[in-house]
């Protein structure tokens, strides 16, 4: 039992720090560069993103293991997962509009973009290919969400300062953001080898 928990903890740690999706797997970059301009939106995005990620990977796990595998149609997994994610995003879009219209006003565009975010599709795909069980899948999703949130918040706090600084004109905006991300990625590569899975 104890080792079970430590394995789950290791999964969370590895998904969020060592194999951080943004810095070492380069996924979800469009959203990463899109919403990291302001701290407030970054925080809102991280919260929505993490919760969507956990729930949709849970649903995907059930569908994959209880429908696709018994029927032997696992080659359809891309189509099915994107359907699950898109449907769930649509639902959370509606719920958020009702509950927090203010936040919806700010994040509405990006919430719609979540369904075209690679991470949210990558997590179920990795879960399926690594044959994780339900709890492992959920903690992998949680770790990925936390890692993405961490990346977003670090980046947002840097970019808020960046707007005041003097940058060569062609590098203004995205190019400098890329170079800074490279520097953070370099720092994150220091986590490699922290845990052997």
């Amino acid at each position: 039992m104890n080792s079970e928990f430590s394995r789950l903890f290791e999964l969370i740690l590895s998904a969020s720090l060592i194999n951080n999706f943004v810095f070492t797997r380069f996924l979800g970059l469009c959203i990463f560069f899109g919403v990291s301009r302001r701290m407030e939106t970054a925080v809102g995005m991280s919260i929505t993103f993490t919760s969507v990620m956990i729930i949709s990977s849970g649903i995907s796990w059930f569908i994959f293991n209880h429908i696709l595998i018994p029927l032997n149609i696992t080659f359809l997994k891309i189509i099915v997962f994107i359907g699950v994610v898109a449907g769930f995003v649509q639902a959370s879009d509606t719920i958020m509009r009702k509950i927090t219209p203010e936040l919806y006003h700010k994040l509405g565009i990006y919430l719609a973009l979540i369904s075209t975010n690679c991470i949210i599709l990558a997590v179920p795909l990795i879960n399926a290919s690594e044959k994780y069980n339900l709890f492992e899948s959920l903690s992998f999703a949680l770790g990925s969400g936390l890692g993405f949130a961490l990346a977003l918040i670090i980046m947002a706090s840097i970019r808020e300062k960046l707007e005041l600084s003097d940058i060569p004109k062609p590098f203004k905006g995205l190019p400098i953001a890329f170079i800074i991300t490279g520097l953070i990625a370099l720092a994150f590569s220091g986590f490699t080898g922290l845990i052997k899975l």
Partner: protein
Amino acid sequence: MISKIYTELIKNGIFKENTIFKLALSLCPSIAVTNSLRNGFLMGVAVLFVQVTVNITISLIRNYINPAIRLPVFMLIISGWVTIADLSMAAFAPEAYKQMGLYIQLIVAFASILARAEMFASKNNVLPSLFDGLGMGLGFLFALSIISFFRETLGNGSVLGLKLINTKPLLIMILPAGGFFAVGLLMGIYNWINTRFNKL
């Protein structure tokens, strides 16, 4: 006259609306698979294939799609073609597939493909859609090849696996962090060239 429109469409995809450098969409593979020219090129070809086939399919059936559910329909069409690309890649290039399989599957989540389907293919005939897809796909291929060429020469001192430079390579360029540096630098250069040309 007609062919002029088509070349214009292709030019638009490669230069004016280059997916990576200009629109900054679909950035994930631009870093993930560009550590060698071969991988970058293969990825570009896969995207080109999906973009063209999706554009053709959607413009063929555009009059039968109910506008209210068009997005799910587009997603289904895209993921269908991506599955085909994914499976054929696994069959014909198993070695490269091992390294970049996940990223091939993730073509589904490309904003640029969905955007072209929505903005262009769902409003135009088959032939213009075909050329629009070709232009966008070639632009993507072009950008990926440049980035991966840049990274492979600097980081490994080689092109397509052939050693060119015998000095100690700049190892950082093939590390994950180097991908960000490469894209950032190339984007800056692209912007610089663009402003220069507009002034002239």
